[in-house]
């Protein structure tokens, strides 16, 4: 397993695939293989936080995990499958803002870390967040915004969730260019995260 983890962290895609295939052929517990991928992803995330790894490496490691998951999925027992997702998260860039890079990376990182993510896209109207919150029943909503003019749509979205009576059961996190803890207080969110890795950490804390 260590060899597999090392190959993923070293971004050696061919070797990771070969090792994974080999393990599947040898009837190694598929959950163990997936665990190795998660451990590797955690290490990649840690190095990203330290500024040693970069976005393309996050994406490549995510692709490796997705490819492995596709192969492993058919091998999982029903019990394994049902315990697969850690929780549900809604993500979207708020009304008036069309920046998507950060939001897409957060969506990807949550997805590969075991969350079921509903990405509402960019320039998401307040009503769409509320509607999705009712239909999808998430534990967490992540609002993204790059511009200072994203503050008020965020505040309005939180207010609308309160109005709709769903705010209590949902944790709200915000992220993007200008966001900090002061803005978190202004919009009435529960937390602010500076990057995708922090978004995953927040969800891990909230959903145990």
């Amino acid at each position, binding site marked *: 397993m260590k060899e597999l983890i090392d190959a993923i962290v070293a971004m050696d895609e061919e070797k990771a695939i070969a090792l994974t295939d080999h393990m599947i052929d040898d009837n190694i517990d598929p959950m163990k293989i997936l665990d190795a991928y998660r451990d590797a992803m955690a290490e990649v995330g840690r190095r990203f936080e330290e500024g040693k790894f*970069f*976005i*393309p490496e996050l*994406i490549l490691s995510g692709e490796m995990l997705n490819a492995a998951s596709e192969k492993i999925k058919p091998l999982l027992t029903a019990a394994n499958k049902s315990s697969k997702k850690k929780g549900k998260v809604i993500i979207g860039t708020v009304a008036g803002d*069309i920046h*998507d*890079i950060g939001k*897409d*990376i957060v969506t990807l990182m949550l997805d590969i870390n075991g969350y079921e993510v509903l990405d509402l*896209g*960019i*320039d998401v109207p307040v009503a769409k967040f509320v509607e999705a919150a009712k239909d999808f029943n998430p534990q967490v909503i992540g609002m993204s915004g*790059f*511009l*200072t*003019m994203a*503050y*008020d749509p965020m505040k309005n979205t939180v207010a609308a969730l309160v109005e709709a009576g769903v705010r209590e059961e949902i944790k709200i996190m915000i992220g993007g*260019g*200008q966001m900090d803890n002061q803005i978190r207080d202004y919009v009435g969110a529960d937390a602010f995260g500076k990057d995708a890795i922090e978004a995953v950490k927040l969800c891990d804390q909230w959903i145990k």
Partner: protein
Amino acid sequence: MIIIGEKINGTRKQVAKAIQERDETFIRELAIKQSEAGAHYLDINAGTPPDREPADMVWLIQTVHSVTNVNLCLDSTNPEALKAGIQQLKDKPIMLNSLSGEKNRINGVLPLACEHNTELIVLALDDKGIPNTGEERLAIIRSLVEMTRNGGLPDRNLYIDPLITTIATDTQSGPKAFDTMRKIKDEFPDVHLTAGLSNISFGMPSRPLINRAFAALAIAAGLDSAIINPEDKELRGMVKAVEMVLGMDKHCLNYIRAHRSGQI
């Protein structure tokens, strides 16, 4: 290359603080340094909430013009802030940043540009966001150019921004941008092409190197304006050298002069 200096932007924390505290010294410094570095326009973006943005825009313009006579590029989605800025700049060339296919900008920014015959940055996006393909972006540009023409704005006033996305999330970002630039220039030879150059390197290490490589290839694809940090000496040098190598610098005088004055 028409350089638009990007630094007076309220979405940057220090600038936001200076606007809040009416710190004239800080804003003046940004204005002087950028214009001395050869910026043709300075972008002015207050980035404050709509109710206070017109006043902040006016304060920024007055502060900048107290130390330099450089032309300004008024950067806002708020028509009231743009109007207040235009009032301040009566007889000077004005650039507006920006028109796009978004309804609020077509209704709010386009009439102001036509009425005051301004230079105008045009973004290849609409209410659905930034399209993925060059062809879709071109379709947005086509409909917007039709509108500016109908409004009496000559094509040479337009600075079309094909919108550069980062190479970190899509390795084809560069080729896509160059392809879109060439197509726009083929169809509308009189327009300018501009771009926020540093977008290409978002999320990558050693960004200045990527920005320089991108600048060189983008100029070859027709880019003749850029929204950048004008104080980036290496980037400035690259631009001058590329223009010369592409045969755009008669007798190489721009390059030689920039060398002699220590600009590059």
